[in-house]
């Protein structure tokens, strides 16, 4: 990409980005550990437990074994020939939709469930929006013989009933949340309230690169397998080169963080795509909620606003703190797309590539369609897009919207 209109990694302070944060869990001015006193010791304990496990070859051996023989890793990179022809850019897709349980969420929960067991905790609590993280958590709990409670906003319970049924089949208890906006934000609140009361026996299995330290760091590390694999796979396809643009969708931002971690020290431009109604980086301001300083949609008083998106997984008014840092230093750029563009992208990808995307990564596809059309991604560019999950869970919702 000779005349890149999307900023690249050149000149950015690359070595210091996406590394190991200090004990205060800061990513620049973002991050930290803003939790009730009851939870501080648990966060400290988790931090050392993760550091210890992450430096222990036997932990990696067990996790890698599960990722390979249970979750189906490595996931392939697919060259999207028909879409590429249509857009005039070369599109490669990292196929997290082919991982067990249908999304990248399994990478994180297998790591956290193994860690919970290592810490002697027998119960997992999780929040979920679209249900993908809830399903993944319930799956990991079933696999390792842990109890699992999933909090899910009532609005999401209604629009993702298939995933609710899946979680119950997997042995998890799904607790609908009726407070606030009754979506992902409120599910996080309720999971935190549970954890405050049960912290001695329970691990809070956070589903994204958010929350108090060490979660944003830990979840990024557990997801970096996406980016690390994709980088090698792209080099094979592209004759040793990295893609010009790397794009992923963002709610809290875990698939994007995992993807970006593999490319942050290359010249690839990194692009995150938010839902227009939940664009914490597009319309948010700095704040402190859910244990972290990051960017949030909020009013002048500091009350958190409700996000609105067709996608339950992106219906979150904040974003992981490391994304806030990547945006602040200019290493990644963040864009938003509206529901209509997303539905269009959903159909386009299905019809041109035979891949029905989840509504979340359909946001990344929607941005790509737009950016290729406007020239923001110039003709002839190479693009890696992380297909973070498959669309089975969304087909009924889209069908209903069509009728």
């Amino acid at each position, binding site marked *: 990409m000779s005349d890149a209109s999307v900023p690249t990694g050149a000149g950015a302070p690359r070595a210091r980005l996406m590394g190991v944060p200090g004990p*205060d869990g800061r990513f620049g001015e973002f991050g*930290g*550990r*803003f*939790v*009730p*006193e*009851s*939870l*501080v*010791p*648990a966060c400290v304990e988790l931090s050392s437990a993760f550091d210890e496990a992450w430096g222990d070859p036997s932990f990696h051996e067990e996790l890698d074994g599960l990722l390979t023989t249970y979750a189906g890793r490595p996931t392939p990179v697919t060259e999207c020939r028909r879409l590429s022809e249509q857009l005039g850019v070369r599109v490669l897709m990292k196929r997290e939709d082919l991982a067990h349980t249908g999304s990248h969420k399994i990478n994180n929960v297998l790591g956290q469930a193994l860690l919970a067991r290592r810490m002697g905790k027998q119960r997992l609590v999780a929040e979920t929006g679209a249900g993908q993280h809830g399903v993944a958590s319930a799956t990991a709990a079933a696999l390792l013989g842990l109890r699992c409670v999933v909090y899910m906003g009532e609005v999401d319970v209604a629009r993702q009933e298939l995933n609710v049924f899946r979680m119950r089949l997997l042995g998890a208890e799904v607790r609908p949340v009726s*407070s*606030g906006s009754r979506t992902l*934000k*409120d599910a996080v*609140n309720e999971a*935190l*309230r549970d954890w*405050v*009361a*049960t*912290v*001695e026996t329970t691990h809070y299995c956070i589903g994204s690169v958010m929350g108090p330290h060490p979660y944003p760091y830990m979840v990024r590390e557990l997801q970096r397998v996406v980016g690390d694999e994709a980088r090698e796979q792209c080099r094979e396809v592209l004759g040793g080169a990295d893609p010009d643009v790397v794009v992923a969708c963002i709610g809290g931002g875990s698939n994007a963080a995992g993807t970006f971690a593999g490319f942050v020290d290359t010249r690839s431009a990194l692009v995150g795509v938010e839902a227009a109604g939940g664009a914490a980086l597009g319309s948010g*301001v*700095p*704040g*402190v*909620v*859910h*244990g972290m300083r990051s960017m*949030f949609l*909020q009013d*002048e*008083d*500091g*009350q*958190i606003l409700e996000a609105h998106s067709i996608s339950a997984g992106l219906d979150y008014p904040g974003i992981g703190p490391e994304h806030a840092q990547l945006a602040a230093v200019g290493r990644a750029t963040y864009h938003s797309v509206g529901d209509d563009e997303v539905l269009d992208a959903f159909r386009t990808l299905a019809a041109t590539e035979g891949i029905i995307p989840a509504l979340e990564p359909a946001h990344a596809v929607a941005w790509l369609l737009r950016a290729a059309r406007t020239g923001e991604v110039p003709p002839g560019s190479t693009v890696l897009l992380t297909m973070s999950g498959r669309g089975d869970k969304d087909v009924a919702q889209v069908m209903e919207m069509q009728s």
Partner: protein
Amino acid sequence: MTGPGTHQVGALEARLRERRDAGSKLVVPYLTGGLDGEWIDTLRALAAAGADAIEVGIPFSDPVMDGPTIQEASERALRSGTTRHSILDALRGADVDVPIAVMTYYNLVARAGHRRSASELAAAGVAGAILPDLPLDEAGPWLAAADEAGVATVLLAAPTTPDDRLAAIGARSRGFLYAVGLLGVTGERRELAASARAIAARCMAVTDLPVLVGVGVSNAAQARELCEVADGVVVGSALVRRLLDGAGPKGAGEFLAELRAAVDG
């Protein structure tokens, strides 16, 4: 041990120490600001019925330390248009003779800026601030601004807090030390948690500040029992539930008088 000589003693701490040193147990009720149209009358009724200080909640959209009762009160207040400023304006004109501490979440003071928030509290006559999602490790910038404005920041100690950390929290708290009586969110409990007496005793051992136990203190009998091991209690959900059920200022005053009588008896 932190004696009163090591820092500037504000109105909240001065009043609580004075009452405690005179041999009285301390009762501090919690009231959600803007809960209804007569909440300032409720505040006055609580003062008249013998509250030693009053916690006023500034409602937040995402109150993770609060159970269903205070969540409902917060939502009700926010729906009726309550803001930080409307509460502070009302407090400025309230003219009650007991110290007021606001209880809110960190984002509300961070959003406006630490110095501005702290000076706005002081200007409204607020003597203390309790921010349950701002642990000691992250509190530095806020504590500096609050100290400068003369607002006492009350820190919380939890049953899971280790000893060395508890000592540091006791040393940095101002006004009083808030002993969280159980692992969990605010709300009434039928039985007093065993952890309540334990954390109260541990707090009493590390500080000379008044130690008040809150979270899960639900009735007069529980308040009396805790006053055997602590300097006093904070009672929130039990009062707020009565107000949600329509008790009004009169009912609130009666409940406070009941608590008062139990701990004085």
